[in-house]
């Protein structure tokens, strides 16, 4: 099982997560900070995309716990 942690205090709103794993991440309207919409994605493709997003996040805001 995968649990995603997003640290909104360090997020810089780059949108890499929402671009890479759109089923899992979104950005809020006002500041574009990360919002986890599916904290426990079941599909293999989404899980791979989450791993990519963790690697790509420029602010180191994402982790899998």
């Amino acid at each position, binding site marked *: 099982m995968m649990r995603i942690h997003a640290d909104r205090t360090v997020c810089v*709103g*780059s*949108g890499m997560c929402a671009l890479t794993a759109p089923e899992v991440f979104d950005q809020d309207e006002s*500041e*574009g900070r990360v919002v986890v919409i599916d904290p426990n994605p079941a599909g293999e493709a989404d899980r791979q995309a989450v791993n990519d997003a963790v690697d*790509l996040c420029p602010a180191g805001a994402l982790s899998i716990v």
Partner: protein
Amino acid sequence: MIQDPPVPHGFPIERHDRYSPPAALTELRQRRPMSRMRYADGHEGWLITSYDLARKVLSNPLFSNAPAGVHPVLGGLQPTKEQKTAPPGMFLRMDPPDHTRLRRMLTGVFTVRRMNQLEPRVTEIVRHQLDQLEHHGTGADLVEHFSLPIPSLVICELLGVPYEDRASFQVDTAAIFRLDTPQDERLAHMDSIQKFLADLVDRKKAEPTDDLLSELTRNPELDRAELVGIAFLLLIAGHETTANMLGLGTLALLEHPEQLQLLRQDPDIVDSAVEELMRYLSIIHIGPLRVARADIELGGNLVKEGENVTISLASSNRDPERFDDPEELDLRRRAIGHLAFGHGVHQCLGQQLARIEMRIAWRELFTRFPKLRLAVDPSEVPLRTDMAIYGVHRLPVEW
């Protein structure tokens, strides 16, 4: 015996090939990815050419992006007194928390979702420019009619800058980005844009319209100088970067016909094509540069407080440790993780806008002109080796 590559004096910019980083940088990445570099004023700093170290520097908050303590990497770019601190609003040249405060006022506007909503309008703009190109006939300059006006129209519209005024600030931006512009002239051009934008801010305050600048003027936390600084940054950043990707990227596609064929056959690969062209071309070809705010251990070396560290994004993006066959342009590869938009807290704010502009522009260009080709010999295309952002000055085409 193989000699160690010499310590470069100044940032290497001399290329042997239109698309590849200077050979001196590639050699350093292979032999000494963290190297000493002698800066133009004699400062003994560092030069980073590998992907892994580049990412480490860009994501480490102990490396500052503020102007204080910056040494010039090339002659003629001496920082002056005026540049010791970032002008108000110029958050790109600030560190957290100042940077964070200003950037967060804008990130809501540049989200993936908001940028995707612009697609219909960007498509209209692109098609209009294709009409212009067609109208100018054989030999038309793709830079003048297509790659430069598209991002320019889009950012002007988003910000609320009257596009009719572009002639004056395009002259100023071009001069600012020319590497050999003397420092006092550069400052005069910056002044000229700032005055124009200050007037515009006042007008938006008096008579708000439906655009980003008007929206920002309603924010009580921002004073006039900050508004001007933000507008300046967005206008400049939105202009030359995407424009040069479109110009140089189109040339690269025309010179790699088997790759272009892939894109023509399956326009759906345009998303990965954009990432790959960003990686392959890395148009920010000088820097970024950071200043150590403390002694920092990096790659088995000690960077002392105050020392400058300059990164080659072009070389990092060709690092075989990260990308297989990095010297190949391969539109189908997963080029994700390239550093062309930077990394760390300063990673390009407008990257999602740039992505949709490039996707739409290339898709539409090769749909409208399936037989697009160069109207001159590739060796005659003037390259922007003399500019802070790499690309082509002109690209005459026919179809």
